[in-house]
């Protein structure tokens, strides 16, 4: 197909695909179809299609979906084309194949207004639609809201936006307008946050928490990344709950451009040693110093697949994220 595509035609091709898969499985244990959502991925033409395909394939066993990958070409003609295939896997030691549908649509920027009418009938009835927009440029296209309106949740990555402060402000505004959002940058912080929270599950450490008067966060790169603003806002929010009003510093720990956090210190008023200190070591582990004890926990940089897997495990909205995003946006622009 070239020029235009018909959702009916795509659905028909999918039905044919299942018939042919069924024939291949004849005589063996057959083919099982699995689906828990419609997952739409909006990507640039320059995005590595193999990497996206690998992410989708890795997500399938845990979150089987009808995946719709839309690759945008920077052309002026309103052209759309599509192909349909299946992602199948055989669970270890099983004869039966499990398959998910994947639809790949190639679209030009100019055809963006036509896309929603194509994607909407392709969404699996009664299941959620999640849209992962991999490119800030696409997100900023004027007609993008027409496509994103069909999704119950929009997944973005503020780390990919050029200006972290502006990105947080923009996302916060979208949130305030009622749009359900997820940010991969926030999800990358889950392990850091969990480490900090676990420290204060210990009652003697928790008793020390009101002594925290200052938060020091260091990061790679010259400009404070969205992750640092999120972390600061989240820590301040937690401390405010117990009546503290801590100060905070964001410090650059080097010129590397990754925007990753390097350390988080919770400090007392008197300039004494940190009450809690967490430092990234060897790039994949955190060294935690608290109450005279030093221990290590793995803190690897997570793949897109691992981040999406975490997000998919949350059925509805995430009030802690939403609260923190609003606070982080305020901090970043103040």
């Amino acid at each position, binding site marked *: 197909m070239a020029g235009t595509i018909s959702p009916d035609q795509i659905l028909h091709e999918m039905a044919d695909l299942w018939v042919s898969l069924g024939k291949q499985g004849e005589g063996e244990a057959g083919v099982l179809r699995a689906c828990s959502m419609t997952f739409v991925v909006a990507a640039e033409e320059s995005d590595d299609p193999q990497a996206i395909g690998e992410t989708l394939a890795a997500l399938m066993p845990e979150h089987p979906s009808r995946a719709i990958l839309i690759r945008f070409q920077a052309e002026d003609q309103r052209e759309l084309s599509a192909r349909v295939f299946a992602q199948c896997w055989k*669970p270890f030691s099983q004869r039966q194949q499990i398959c998910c549908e994947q639809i790949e649509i190639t679209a030009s920027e100019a055809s963006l207004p036509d896309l929603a009418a194509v994607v909407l009938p392709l969404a699996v009835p009664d299941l959620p639609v999640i849209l992962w927009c991999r490119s800030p440029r696409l997100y900023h296209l004027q007609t993008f809201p027409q496509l994103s309106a069909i999704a119950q949740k929009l997944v973005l990555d503020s780390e990919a936006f050029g200006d972290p402060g502006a990105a947080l402000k923009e996302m916060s505004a979208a949130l305030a307008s009622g749009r359900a959002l997820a940010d991969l940058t926030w999800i990358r912080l889950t392990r850091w946050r*969990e480490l900090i929270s676990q420290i204060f599950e210990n009652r*003697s450490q928790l008793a020390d928490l009101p002594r925290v008067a200052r938060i020091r966060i260091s990061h790679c790169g010259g400009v404070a990344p969205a992750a640092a603003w999120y972390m600061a806002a989240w820590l301040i929010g937690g401390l405010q709950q117990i009546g503290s009003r801590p100060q905070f510093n964001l410090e650059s720990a080097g010129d590397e451009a990754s925007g990753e956090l390097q350390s988080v210190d919770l400090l007392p008023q008197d300039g004494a040693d940190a009450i809690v200190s967490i430092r990234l070591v060897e790039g994949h582990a955190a060294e935690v110093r608290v109450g005279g004890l030093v*221990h*290590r926990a793995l803190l690897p940089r997570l793949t897109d697949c691992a981040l999406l897997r*975490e997000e998919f495990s*949350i059925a509805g909205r995430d009030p*802690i994220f939403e609260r923190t995003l609003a606070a982080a946006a305020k901090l970043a622009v103040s």
Partner: protein
Amino acid sequence: MSLENPFQDPLRFERRVPECLMVIFGANGDLTKRKLLPALYRLAYERRLSAGCAVLGISRTPMSDDQFRGKMCESVREFLEDSPFDQDVWAAFAQGLFYMAGDIKDAALYPALAARLQEIEQARHTGGNVLFYLSTQPSQYIPIAQGLGSAKLGKGEGWRRIVVEKPFGHDLSSAQELSDELHNVFRESEVYRIDHYLGKETVQNILAFRFGNGIFEPLWNRRYVNHVQITAAESIGVEGRGAYYQEAGSLRDMIQNHLLQVMATIAMEPSATFRPNSVRDERSKLLRSIRVMKPDEVLEDSVAGQYGPARIGGEDVPGFHQEPGVKPDAQTDTYAAITFFVDNWRWAGVPFYLRSGKRLPKRVTEIAIQFNAAPLAIFNDEGGGTAPNLLILRIQPEEGISLKFLSKRPGAGMKLRPVSMDFNYGSSFGERSPTADEILLLDAIIGDATLYTRQDMVEASWAVVDAIQHVWDQTKFDFPNYAAGTWGPAAADEMLARRGHAWRKP
């Protein structure tokens, strides 16, 4: 007012784990090396333990803390399944491992233990929370409980809990005696009787399947269920445990605890909440509703078996009597099949067939719920429309759920064939599932006793089993009565055939 951790995020974080010092009695034993330490390391690897978590191992062998750490490191490396070993994580975890040598029966051990606990608590900030884990021979449970009581270790600044491995006694009266001794030191809510079957994902998934969905529960009763089969088959023999096993047998070793707990989970009434005591109340009520057999019913509705020698896959396999450590005339049941009935409105008249055995054709544990046939057979026999609907919940080796139903064969004519709709736990959710040991250990540290067995449940299941065991003890069986590698004695097939049923061959 006590301060609450303001950083909790229940949507994204794992469950909250308090600081804790775990004391393992029998620290040099197989269970500790193969299961406990690998599970604890795995929890540390997954960042599930609190930072100050500590373990104090106790056994008779003299060893320093460092020697113990070295030994446990070897065990973890050897027995860690589906997980990488990370040297840095181990190094941090090992700082919290401690050891003291001592004889469990020596009264001097316990005051020394109290002093050591205090020392470790101060160094690791464990807040006085102590979990005692009895990984010893069952005969040592009572001396340990008495020792802990005499040193006043059952109470302290934080919480105190004790984990006990099965068997919980060898009959009703010994189970009550053990319980009384434990209750002299710990409250019932502090006693965690561990049943590894209840920690398995699929057993927990039974609760999700039954009570999280609206469509199955209306079918879950005598009106629609024809009968239930619960099978726990092992392909191996007694594997060097002949001396222990000949005193236990399949009825005591498997049915009294694991299979009756599984049956209770399948048949219990919906719990009002998912709180530990609420779920356990329902399990307990179900166990108390199982009809206790009269002696003549035992002969009708139970079958004891023992495997004889056979040749399997070109290899000679010994019979039970030929196993090392087994008396040549041992009357031990290596196979047991029982028909139970539940005397309540939901299940009256529905047979629950439970079987467990060693040296059966394959290792499999599953629950099969067979539904009644359609009230009117409108398709003729040629059409193949007679296979019953079956719901199969597989517990091991591959955890999952299958629903078998009839479907029309494609093409002309109305010919039906059974098809299976499968949900495979491992493949449908690609992440590694935590092992039963990990789940249960974490539950004990958190204080969630939902998957642990309560004393009233233990007593109810012993009451049911004692009635059978008593008759069996007085019976001279003509053993062996099944060949290794077969599905058990013919009498077990006849037991089902009398009610028009047949065992599934999983």
